[in-house]
């Protein structure tokens, strides 16, 4: 509208992210946000599990059954990766907040380290959780 103050007009926004080549640092940065949002949703699943345990044995068995189903296992492995990635990259962010490791080389190296650690912890967790234990699940 003509009466809008100049700041309200639709002006082009900067930066135009689509003109940049994806880089380790930029891709890992947006992945931190994506895993953060995913974890917010995943935490509701965790509360569902806790509330089920606090409700009744039958309802808890139902929720445990869902967690052990194909969809449940895919969700849990996704949740585990999101958790480990956000945890490791969060530690990287805390170092940056302290002014450590902000140069290009170290930032790239720590990024590679974070992805490797998150992947390794996810595989390790899946192996531990899916290995049959003494008592039947």
């Amino acid at each position, binding site marked *: 509208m003509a009466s809008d103050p100049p700041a309200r007009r639709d002006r082009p926004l900067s930066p135009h992210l689509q003109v940049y080549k994806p880089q380790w640092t930029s891709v890992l940065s947006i992945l931190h946000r994506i895993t953060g*949002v995913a974890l917010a949703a995943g935490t509701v699943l*965790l509360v569902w599990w806790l509330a089920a345990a606090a409700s009744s044995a039958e309802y808890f068995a139902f929720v445990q059954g869902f967690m052990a189903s194909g969809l449940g296992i895919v969700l849990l492995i996704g949740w585990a990766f999101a958790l480990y990635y956000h945890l490791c990259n969060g530690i990287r*962010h805390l170092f940056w907040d302290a002014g450590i490791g902000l140069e290009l080389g170290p930032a790239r190296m720590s990024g590679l380290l974070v992805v490797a650690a998150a992947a390794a912890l996810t595989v390790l967790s899946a192996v531990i959780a899916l290995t049959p234990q003494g008592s039947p699940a």
Partner: protein
Amino acid sequence: MSFRTPLGRVRGLGSAKDGTHHWWAQRLTAIALVPLTVWFAVSILMLAGAERAAISEWLANPVTVGLLVMLIVATFHHGQLGLQVVIEDYVHTEAWKIGLIVFVKFAALLFGGIGIVSVLKLAFAG
């Protein structure tokens, strides 16, 4: 040189009128969540596929209950602070932005509350 007034500088609140409080609360909860999350991941892996009785047994220890309640508080506080920033960055319609932020804050209180009550119920009633 700075265009800020001396009074504005001494208050240190900036344009959001909130100073560094949001940023600081997100870092504090992040620092708390590093050890809490590691503890929780190890605990939950040991409980994978466990019977309900094993969870009651796990929650019979008050230290576990305290850590779990702290984890829930820090997680939901951290989560709603983070989601607020994501909404502020990507939702540009004022009504949707405010509405979503209010929804996220209420949902965090609700689910965090249900989580804490569940843990306490398991701890006290088994």
